[in-house]
Structures are given as C-alpha cells and as structure tokens.
C-alpha cells in the first residue's frame, strides 16, 4: 500500500493529475496517442519531449540544492554546449561532438564547484558569474550567428525515436536511472543529504563536504550540457542568445515543486523530474487552450507561490497560531 501511495510525492502526483484533467477539458484530444512510422505521437508525448531539457537540468539542480546551493548558470551552460555541438557537428563525428560539449559542461561545473566549495563563495553569487559570462562565451563560439548543421547523428538525438519514444525522452529517462543508481546505489545520497542538512556537523563526522559540493556542481554542469546538446539537436542549430534562456528558473522551480527545500537536506530525483513534467504539462495545456502564452507566466507564478507558501515554516506557524486562537475562543 505504501508503495502504491507514497506519503512523499502524493501532493505532486495529485497536482499532476489535476493539471492533466484541466488539460483534458481545454483540449479533448489531450490523451490521444497514435503510432506513426514506429513512433508515438500525441500531446502526452509532446509534454515529455518538450519537458526533457528542464527535466535534465532538474536532475543536476536537485543535487546542488540538496547541498544548500543553487546553480544559476545552467541556462548559460546549455548555450555553451549547444554552441560547441553545432559548431563541430558537420566536421566531426558524433562521439567527438558529444565529448567536447559534455566536457565543456564538466569544466563549467568544476568552475562553479571550485568557487563554492574551495573559495567558499555564496552559491548564488558564484554561479551568477557563469550565468552572465557563459552566454558571452557561447556568443563568442557562434560568433554571434545562429549556427545550423545537418549532421544526421546529432539531428537523430533531437528528433529520432527509440522503441516508439522520442530519443530525448529516452535519454532523460536513462539519465534519471543513471543518476539514481549512482546517488542511491552508493553512499553519495546520504552524504549529500547530511552535507546539506548540517555541513559543520557532517564535516566533524568525517564527511568530505567539499568533495560532495564539488561533485554535485560538476554533475549539474554535465546535465546542463546534455540538455544543451538536445535543445540544439532539436532545432538543428545553436542560438547562443536564446538557448536555455531562463531555464535555470524552471529547473529551480521543478526542484522546489518536487519538495526539495532550498535550505538543503532531503531530496528526491524522481519528484524533481515530476516537477519538471508538471511545469511542462501546464505550458502545453495553456498552449492548447488557445490562451496567449503570456498567460503561462502568470499561471506559473501562481503555482510557485502556492508551493513556496506551503513550504514556509512561518505560514505553518501562522496557521498554528490561528488554530490556537480559534480554539481559545469560546
């Protein structure tokens, strides 16, 4: 029973169901799926496919936030890796392209991790540096143009399909399983949660807190780079100005909706990805409903507020006071 209805995550699953139901109302064909050329099509598949970049970002972001950090640079890292992939795609083989762009993400992650773990900078400031500089670097790589490519291998990454699923969805699923296996299969999960929960105590217990913090930023960089490659593959080009723009905020939002506190500690990879899907389901629903997309931002804002208010200890304290006052009244 507990396996069917986990107490943690119930709210997120319910939220997803509610939003899906609303989507069904505004668009009656929402749940329709059809198989064409060995690939599934339909709004649901679309949600998964469009949601992939943010889902990938949230996989890295959730670990960073679990250590009580934050990574604002993921959108810029997407732009960098997309720019590298697009620039190399037509002249090099796919392995080289992937190695170069993911390697760039790893270096970006190392940089962030170095600033936070070794120099002790506040994460929000440290990653702000790369958020600003990274987009500049991407623009330098593309020399300010939109670089297009036709390399079939890279295009397949964005538009192909495996076992009926779009390749990006399969990659995101694979990354979720890989990250889960590494984090929960080793002691990493416990040590990250301990570091985020109380870094001083963890350090005194012999936990290598710096190594923990460094590694989560590196992983976050790699995830962001992968998201950048997929986003570039999807549109068969790299636009340094717009690739990944503001997606760091969606990723943070996904993590927060997934129930991981910005104060670090307990985290859930699956719920963070679920958070990304909730956001995308909202986006798609609003697009299908025919409302102007601007509306999207407002709805998102309302959802953010609802989630944050629910997490606020002040609010629960306030609710407690109200309850006591009500009880005190005859």
């Amino acid at each position, binding site marked *: 029973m507990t396996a069917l209805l986990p107490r943690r995550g119930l709210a997120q699953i319910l939220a997803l169901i509610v939003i899906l139901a609303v989507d069904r109302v505004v668009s009656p064909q929402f749940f329709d799926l059809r198989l064409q050329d060995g690939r599934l099509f339909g709004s649901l598949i679309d949600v998964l496919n469009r949601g992939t970049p943010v889902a990938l970002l949230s996989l890295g972001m959730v670990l960073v936030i679990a250590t009580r950090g934050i990574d604002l640079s993921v959108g810029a890292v997407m732009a960098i890796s997309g720019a590298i992939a697009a620039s190399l795609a037509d002249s090099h083989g796919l392995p080289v392209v992937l190695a170069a762009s993911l390697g760039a993400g790893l270096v970006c992650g190392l940089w962030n991790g170095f600033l936070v773990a070794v120099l002790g900078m506040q994460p929000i400031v440290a990653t702000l540096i790369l958020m600003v500089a990274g987009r500049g670097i991407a623009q330098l790589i593309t020399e300010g143009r939109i670089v297009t490519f036709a390399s079939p291998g890279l295009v397949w990454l964005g538009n192909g399909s495996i076992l009926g699923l779009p390749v990006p969805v399969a990659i995101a699923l694979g990354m979720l399983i890989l990250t889960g296996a590494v984090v929960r299969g080793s002691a*990493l999960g*416990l*040590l990250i*949660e301990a570091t985020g929960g109380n870094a*001083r*105590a963890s350090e005194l*217990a*012999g936990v*290598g807190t710096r190594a923990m913090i460094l590694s989560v930023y590196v992983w976050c960089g790699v995830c962001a780079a992968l998201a950048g490659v997929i986003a570039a593959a999807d549109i068969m080009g790299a636009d340094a100005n717009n690739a990944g723009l503001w997606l760091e905020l969606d990723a943070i939002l996904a993590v927060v909706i997934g129930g991981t506190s910005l104060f670090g500690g307990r985290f859930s990879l699956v719920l963070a990805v679920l958070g990304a899907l909730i956001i995308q389901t909202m986006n798609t629903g609003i697009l299908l409903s025919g409302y102007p997309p601007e509306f999207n931002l407002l709805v998102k804002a309302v959802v953010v507020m609802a989630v944050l208010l629910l997490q606020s200890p002040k609010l629960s304290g306030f609710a407690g006071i109200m309850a006591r006052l009500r009880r005190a009244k005859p």
Partner: protein
Amino acid sequence: MENSASLLEVRGISKSFGAVRALQEVDFTLRAGEIHALLGENGAGKSTLIKVVTGVFPRDAGIVRLGGDEVAPRSAKAALQAGIATVYQEVNLLPNLSVAQNLFLDRQPMRFGIVREGEMRRRAKALLADFGLDIDVSAPLGNYSVAIQHVTAIARAVDLSARVLILDEPTASLDRHEVEILFRIMRQLAKRGIGIVFVSHFLDQVYEISDRITVLRNGRLVGERETASLPRIELIRMMLGRELAETTSARAAAREHESRKVCASFENYGKSGYVAPFNLELRHREVVGLAGLLGSGRTETARLVFGAERADRGQARVEGTPVRLQSPRDGVRHGFGYCPEERKTDGIVAELTVRENIVLALQAKRGLHRPLPRREQDEIARRYVRMLDIRPPDPERPVGLLSGGNQQKVLLARWLATSPRLLVLDEPTRGIDVGAHAEIIRLIRELCDDGLALLVISSELDEIVTYSDRVVVLRDRAHVEELAGETIDVGNILAAIAADSVAVALEAHT
C-alpha cells in the same frame, strides 16, 4: 559606595524558553557610579538577564526599577530611551558609515531638512574628546580598531543620556593596551554617576575594574559580593557551584596505571593564538578530564586533538606512530571520535533519521563506493538504540525531534559504530535532564572499561572527579596542571584553576 542609591533594581526575574528555565527569580542591584561585574559560566543566564532587562526578550515574571521608577521596555530602543544602553561584543554599529554618522545616527543635526555635516563632525569630535579620543570622525567606522568602535558605541550610548551602561564581553577581542583605554573610560563614566554592568570571563580584569560582583549559575542568583573582599577561589566556587564536599568517595578505586598502553600522545602540541603548546598522553582504559573555566582552552584542546583544528607545532602520535591531523577526516581515519559541545549546530543533522545519524561517521570512514547496505544500517541502528536505550526506540524518527539527552546518545552511537580507539567528549552532559545525565556518566565509565581512551570536558567538577583517572587543568588557554589518582578532588582542581594567573600564556604566543 555603601550609601550610593541603587540605580537599577531587578527583582524576581524569571524567564523560560519552552521547558528550559533560563532565569529563576533572579535579583540584581546596580548602584549609581559603580562598576558591577556579572559573572557565570556558559548557560548561567547572563545574556538572558541582559536581554530581559533591556526588553529584547519579554519576561515571564519580576520587575525592573530604574532610579525608583518601574520600567518595562519592550525593545532595545525603548530601553535606550529609558536610559539603559547595551554595547555588545559585536558592536551594533554600521562600519560603512563615518564615525560621526554613527554617533548621530537617527538624530543628525538638521537645517531645512538637510543634515549639517560640518556641525555633526564638530559635535562628534567634541564628544570623543571627552573620552580622550582624537580621531578623524569623517572616516568610516570600519577603518578603526575594535577598541575604538567600542568607545564610539559607548560614547553614543552615554550621549543618548544613558544612566545604565551594560557592556557584554567588551574586552574579548581587545589587546592589553586597548583594554586599558576602555577601563580608563569606564572609570571616568562611573565617576559621573553612571552605573556600569560588566560581563566578562576574564577574572583578572574583573578584579582590576569592578567594585562588586554578582554571580549567576544555572539561571539562579548565587550571590552578590564586594570584589575587594571576595577571594578568587571563593568566586570560582560560586561560579562552578560546588561546595568542597568530599566527593572522592564516589570515585572508582584507583586502578593500575602502568599497565595501560598509550593510545595517542601529543608532544609540545599547540597552535599560536589558540592553545599554548601542551603535552598530553591518552591511554587505553583511561579517562582524562579537562577542567577549567569558560574560555580556558578546553574545547580548543579537544578540537586540536581530534583534528578539527590544525596545530602549527608539535607532534601527534597514534599507538606510537607519528601522524598528521589536518582535518576531522584524518581524526576519523586514525580511529578518533568527537562529540562537540554544540550538539545542534555541530553534532546532529536534525532532518535525518536516527539511523542515518548513527551510520554517518562509519559511512564517511568507509568511503563513497562502499555504501552500508540498508539491512546493515538497520542492524547497527537497532543495536545502539537498544544498547544506549535511545528513546523513542524508533530508528526512522528524525533526530531533531528527540530530547537533548537522546540526541547526545545518538552522537555517542555514531562514534561507537566506527569502533574508535579514542573518544573526545565536549560537555557530554550539558543541557541533559538528570536521569540521562547519570546514564551518560555510567556509559563513559563502561566504554573506558571496554578499552577505549577518553578525553572528557566538563564544567561540572563533581562529574569530572567521578570518572577521571587523570585531570588536566587549563587556565588562560594553557595546560597548567595535571592531577592523577588520589590528588583528584574538587578542591585541588579549584585551587589549580584559581592559582594566581600570569596571563602571559596566550599573549606569548600571539
């Protein structure tokens, strides 16, 4: 002094935080023109008393009279307006503003809505001249030393017509010369009839400057004495709170000393400005107690021994082999464990479960790639929950929800799970109810009999006498005496603490 009118009268003040009674019916009397030292160990209630009197915390019971009129300030600002000013150790001024701006913040001389900078500077200069200070008042306050920042804060308070000046640990970060400047100003102010409350744990300074001493212990008033007629040993006894009752009967019979193998030794080990170099041998099956007043270097010694702080001189050996202790990880690798004094901030990870807190150090020691299987974690957690009687006996409960005593047991379990050779316990019984208190002491003895080496810090001298085989006494951040066997009793420890200190130990190494 006898006929001076009482300026500030505090009667029957009580204050609780949840179930913790921080102050119980405390009285305090400050006379006009006197310097009155408020003393007590950590957790005695000094800060709480100050905060209740100045309205930072609301009080549960009691009254405060200032010059005969009852006052009940509801904030530090209201207290200041009533005439009670407090200068904290960390000066509450704005380092980025100029000295003059700080002095006249909120009450700048104005003309037509514009601050008259020139007038303000002139008045600031005159004000500081009263205190014998001639500095550029237009420079940012942050450019000046802590001493001058203190004097600025005091000058501001006095200029705001303060009649009572509370100085909370004002000398903690001052050097000898700066302390003298501050003392000169304090005497000057006392002559003008201002009553000064001086909180400090430097007893030399207390004897140098104060007219009267009030001692608090565990939230209660122990007594008020005239400084001149209070011998130092008596003062320490008031602070540590033990009569010279012969408690040695509670001691386990002295055991064979020589048969014990040395577990870890520290030779000329120290860090400048932290603890003066010391020699320390810790043996298996032996408890070494560290005794001394607050700030005497006990916790500092513990942190050096464990590796939480890096020594800059001396040699550490584990089982005879020279080792380097650069970080807690090194300590853990060599089989050391450390339960810090601040359980909440340095010990537990409140959000994680009892099980996770218990296996944390063992897991960190094993490394990332060798995770403890869940079954083994459950097994370990169950074993220690049973062995140490942790309540409630639910390994999946977040540890933050447990009582202080049970949190302490979880920390002990964390280290016991690593099968350590040496455990360092810093105030293991602080903030723990009486039942759990005795249990922890029994555990310490048992662990020792099982072959562990223990280094235990405690402010409760009775307690130290009960379980220690040797006692190292610290004063002014130096190890000053070592007692062993029959010579361990409360009286000897007190005498060693009180022996006239030549406060050179620290200064010689800074």
